[in-house]
């Protein structure tokens, strides 16, 4: 990922995708290889092996509802998921993502969810705060506020510790 663009294929998910589906409890571990392999394992065990660095997840409402376990974030980062775009995020998940520099963006218009094509390449333009796919008008994303941006610029919450 360079500083202004995130590029990858789009993977689409529905509403209320919870943390036990994102990363099943049996993959909880301090071993990065185990954590990496567990991403969406119960839902589709072929998903994680097919991921490419920079891929973009697009989801409906309340993405990440459930547990505070940060292993779901670690797995997303280890798999080099470029960004997550959703209609809305569950609060603990959003905090965990922000704190670890995983870019999460909310759609300005919920209806735009239907316009984004799964499987097709996309670019998240960080300057314009938009998701672009070939042949479509850009989808607008809520810009992160100054507070969240400061954490991202620092590289994570712990990096802001003096």
């Amino acid at each position, binding site marked *: 990922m360079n500083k202004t663009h995130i590029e990858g294929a789009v993977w689409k998910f529905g509403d209320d995708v919870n943390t*036990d*589906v994102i990363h099943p409890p049996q993959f909880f571990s301090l*071993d990065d290889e185990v954590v990496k392999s567990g991403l969406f394992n119960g839902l589709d065990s072929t998903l994680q092996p097919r991921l490419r660095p920079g891929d973009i997840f697009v989801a409906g409402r309340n993405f990440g509802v459930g547990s*505070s376990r940060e292993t779901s974030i670690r797995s997303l980062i280890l798999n080099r998921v470029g960004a997550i775009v959703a209609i809305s995020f*569950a609060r603990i998940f959003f905090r965990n993502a922000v704190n670890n520099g995983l870019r999460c963006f909310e759609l300005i218009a919920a209806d735009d969810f239907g316009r984004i094509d799964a499987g097709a390449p996309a670019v998240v333009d960080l300057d314009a705060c938009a998701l672009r796919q070939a042949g479509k008008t850009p989808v607008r994303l809520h810009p992160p506020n*100054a507070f969240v941006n400061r954490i991202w610029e620092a590289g*994570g919450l*712990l990096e802001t*510790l003096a």
Partner: protein
Amino acid sequence: MPKTYCHKVIDRHLSGRADDGPYCDVAIDALLGHDATIGLLIDAFRTRDLKIWDSGKVLFANDHFSSPASIDRAEISNRFIDFARQEGVEHLMIDRGICHQVLVEHALCQPGSLILGADSHTIMAGGLGACATGMGSTDICYALATGRTWLRRPESIKVVFKGRLPTRCSGRDIALMLMSVFGEDGASYRCLEFHDETDNGLCQDDRFSVANMAVETGAKFGVFVPDAITRDYCRARDGADPAPFLRPDADAPYVQAVDVDLSRLSPLVAAPWSPANVAPLTDHHAIPVTRAFIGSCAGGRLRDLEDAANELRGEKIHANVRFTVIPASMAVYREALKSGIVESLLDSGAVFNAPSCGPCGGIDKGVLGRSDVCVSTSNRNFRGRMGHWESRTYLASARTVARAARLGVLDGAPAQVAGKETVNL
């Protein structure tokens, strides 16, 4: 300016650093951690050469891997305990029970306090009027080193409980009813501010059950405005009165106000695979059950064990059902032993296990296989959580779980079953 309860609590804890728009920096009164999530931050803590800001305000419990069921978990467990000892954590509770239950049994958990925990069900301390919330390891690492965190001031939803809780219902049914009202994101980022205006008052165990599941609506806090029941609990626990209580202003602004007449409540069940998939027990017919679980921070207190024992009255459970009971803490376990509840449940065929999380998060002590159908007092029935992807979990009260264990089916229709009259719902 009139304020809600949680705004008063937050304003008392402002750290004096500059506000960042909607975010404020707050000092916390206590920090809760457990063996699984603290393990994830040890390296970060050590490589940055951090120190605990105030070890007297930290409570750690090894509830996920108590006792460890694999070599991997034994390593995580040992690492956690070593870290706690080396860093001087003052309240290290080893094999004493689930962290949330152990916290509310401890004087660190005070009404009006601001508490962070490395687990989403930290919110349960709200049952005692604490503004408590769960966060991930990175947030907890930061708070452990600084005694502070960043928070968005949440708006509040006022929930007023009125009437009288029917004897066949408990706090658990109230929690499930709230799930049917709010769904999985209806209180997202908000504070659920509970007012107990019921005729008889909800007992403290029921308040903890309600506060525990508030997180499943997306809420940041789920807090009971403290009252005489809160005071009695603190007095009995601490041998001293709590500090004077905060109260929300009469004209405080709420984004939503919900009045709930508990007199109309009936036993409820959340079907697979969402805690918000709630319907009355009477809507369920002849669903064969293979596992019954009473335990977890949501439903492993004395009130729950007692309800199960009263429902079963020593009668044997159905031959197809395996019944696991895990008291939420050693204190609960001892009370249940003294009062004969343990013996009664053993007579029915229950298997007891060490106070810990157990099967709730698919950890141990009764994980589910492909064909298992479980009725449980735990707080989440997300697909794959308690075991196999194809297993199914129904969330219900202890009384409903015990009833299903006896019948061998989850069934709410009053009918003759094997020549015995069923208990009237």
